[in-house]
């Protein structure tokens, strides 16, 4: 029984991996994923990375992907697959499960195990662990920073300070929104202990040293400097990491198509049932988190480490939820930060509920009931990862590329097979406002592709992929000889038309084809 919790934790990590790593190529690339992939191309193929304060977020995602590509022997973007990219957030998603074990000295072993299980099975965390964006990395570094900070508060040691500093620097180097996590942490700390500190002064834990704080800040600054300067090759990156908040604040104020009401995140977590698909709900996590918060606040007078951490987490989670809910700009993955805090609280809630049951048979029955309830989270997560990975009935599928776009991609492959020049045939992609993503990722094997926001002077090509609105202009520029070769959904109610040279269409129709859908 000595290693029971460890065995349980290992089993949870295995479950988490089974939900995160298989079939990473299945879901079509989201626009944001493909933009990050193309950003990574410079680092992969030329060893160059420049932080851009206007777009793309922080450098850590690209550098972490460089490691994954090196491990996989991938040297060019053409050799990379969706799995090469998506395995990076998947690793951090599993890492977050493992990180729950680091909270065992703060929340208790039982609570840490439950938190790990809920992290492994949470549909939102699973879904975005398979998504090539920064969010899962940010949640992991935030979790590391908070855990190290609390471990230091409980048992001061320069190692925890350095680890916390590394977490902080990596948060900064991952995504600009790390300041919200940092702000919520400061508010939670101030709310819980500010009054007491004013009366009695800050009760530094025994063993805490001033240089520990310096070490933490120094490590954080060093980590940030390394990444934002592209390993000291681009000094302006440091200033850019501060300048970036200008454009991002504009977006946060609502100058964006991603403006949603304040209850957007809570609604997603609570209940979604669309179009005959499965029900999606993380109410179990929210319910257990409420129980965990209540358990912690009832121990206010006691010297209980788990109670103190629980109270702090409850304030942190509520403040972070409120901040993200107030900001008009919302995308579903932004809620992962506070969802993770709710999961830690939920672990405390599950352990607290079981602790309140005295009789062993009843306790076993209660544990089994929570496990069964966790099972339905796992079923949702499996739906999200596999059957409903790109289905709009899945609430985490947001502004997503239609699977129908892969039909276009495969048709382009078949056309290239039928063309004497193969993938060297001339392709022009003309989409209003440059709304052709993620096609640059999918057409990366084609050697002569032109990308346009409006019809070029000479639109002639073997294949033209265009927004329907450009059809009259293209016909006016001598494109009447091309054959309509299909229309495809880019996203719901957004279409692209394919036109090809008549000889190419005849060759395509006459040649054997790979299935396109």
């Amino acid at each position: 029984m000595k290693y029971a919790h460890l065995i349980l934790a290992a089993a949870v990590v295995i479950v988490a991996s089974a939900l995160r790593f298989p079939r990473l190529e299945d879901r079509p690339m989201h626009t944001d994923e493909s933009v990050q992939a193309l950003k990574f191309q410079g680092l992969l193929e030329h060893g160059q990375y420049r932080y851009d304060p206007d777009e793309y977020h922080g450098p850590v995602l690209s550098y972490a992907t460089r490691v994954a590509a090196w491990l996989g022997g991938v040297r060019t973007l053409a050799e990379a697959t969706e799995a090469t990219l998506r395995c990076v957030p998947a690793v951090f998603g599993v890492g977050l499960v493992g990180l729950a074990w680091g909270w065992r000295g703060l929340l208790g072993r039982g609570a840490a195990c439950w938190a790990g299980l809920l992290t492994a099975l949470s549909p939102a965390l699973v879904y975005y662990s398979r998504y090539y964006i920064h969010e899962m990395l940010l949640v992991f570094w935030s979790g590391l920073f908070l855990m190290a900070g609390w471990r230091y508060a409980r048992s001061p040691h320069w190692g925890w300070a350095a680890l916390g500093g590394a977490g902080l620097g990596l948060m900064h180097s991952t995504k600009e929104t790390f300041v919200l996590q940092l702000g919520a942490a400061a508010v939670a700390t101030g709310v819980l202990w500010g009054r007491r500190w004013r009366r009695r002064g800050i009760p530094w834990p025994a063993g805490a040293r001033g240089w520990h704080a310096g070490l933490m800040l120094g490590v954080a600054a060093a980590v940030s400097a390394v990444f934002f300067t592209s390993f000291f090759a681009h000094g302006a990156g440091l200033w850019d990491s501060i300048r970036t908040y200008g454009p991002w604040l504009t977006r946060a104020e609502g100058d964006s198509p991603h403006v949603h009401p304040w209850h957007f995140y809570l609604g997603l977590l609570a209940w979604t049932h669309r179009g005959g698909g499965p029900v999606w709900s993380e109410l179990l996590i929210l319910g257990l988190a409420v129980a965990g918060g209540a358990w912690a606040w009832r121990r206010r007078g006691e010297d209980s480490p788990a109670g103190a951490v629980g109270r702090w987490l409850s304030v942190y989670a509520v403040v972070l939820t409120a901040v993200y809910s107030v900001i008009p700009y919302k995308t579903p993955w932004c809620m992962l930060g506070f969802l993770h805090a709710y999961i830690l609280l939920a672990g405390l809630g599950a352990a607290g509920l079981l602790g309140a049951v005295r009789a062993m048979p009843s306790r076993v029955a209660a544990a089994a009931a929570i496990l069964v309830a966790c099972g339905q989270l796992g079923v949702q997560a499996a739906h999200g990862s596999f059957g409903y990975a790109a289905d709009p009935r899945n609430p985490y599928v947001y502004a997503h590329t239609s699977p129908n776009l892969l039909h276009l991609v495969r048709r382009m492959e078949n056309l290239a097979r039928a063309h004497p020049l193969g993938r060297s045939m001339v392709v022009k992609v003309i989409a209003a406002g440059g709304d052709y993503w993620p096609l640059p990722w999918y057409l990366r094997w084609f050697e002569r592709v032109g990308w346009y926001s409006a019809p070029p002077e000479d639109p002639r090509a073997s294949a033209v992929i265009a927004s329907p609105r450009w059809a009259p202009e293209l016909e006016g520029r001598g494109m009447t000889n091309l054959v309509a070769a299909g229309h495809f959904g880019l996203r719901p109610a957004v279409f692209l038309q394919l036109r090809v040279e008549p000889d190419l269409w005849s060759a395509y129709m006459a040649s054997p084809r790979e299935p396109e859908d």
Partner: protein
Amino acid sequence: MDMRVKTWNWRVAMAVAVLASAGLAARGAGAKEMAPLEIMLPIPAFMGTPVDIPIDEHVEKPSDKPRPPFMAPKGVANVALNKKVTSSDKSPVSGALDLVTDGDKESTDSSFVELHRRTQWVQIDLDAPHEIYAILIWHAHHTPQIYYDVVVQISDDPDFTQNVKTVYNNDYDNSSGLGIGTDKEYFENYEGRLIDAKGAKGRYVRMYSRGSTFSALNRYTEVEVFALPAK
């Protein structure tokens, strides 16, 4: 040109077209007495015609006007209501096959059956041979989309190996392997797709499709078959 002359010309042309089509329809129906087909439409799930949609030689331009009345012999009724439905997909992704003929054509969560990807079909057994005048199909009308490879066949053979009449085929690239079709693709909407079966005789009606611009899956909300018992 004088605007009044222009209007007059247009009216004459319309009158000639209506008379000609009514005459042709009457001839095709064996000089039966004709009447507009009564069709109960569901509530539109989206309003208006999308602006930036593909229109080319394979795709019909959506109309922002109601569908003109379809003339059919008097007495024609929906003989598919509550009739047995079979399918190429033995275990649909969601819903049950009987939803195809249950009379519910609303765009709601519980009104459709969803079949797996690639070419799939649903087939309705009308219990007896019929003279079929119109087939109305609602795949999915919750969002603008085009269904691929819509092929509609009528036969007396439940296996569709003999006496198969194809009354609609818009598979212009023959991706479903049923032959190249010359009918137009179209945008789904609440009016459904009305296919003129021209009095073709048969007991079984089979509808093929191969996903849509929205989803690789094949959704069927309702199918109505307007027919008279065959003599």
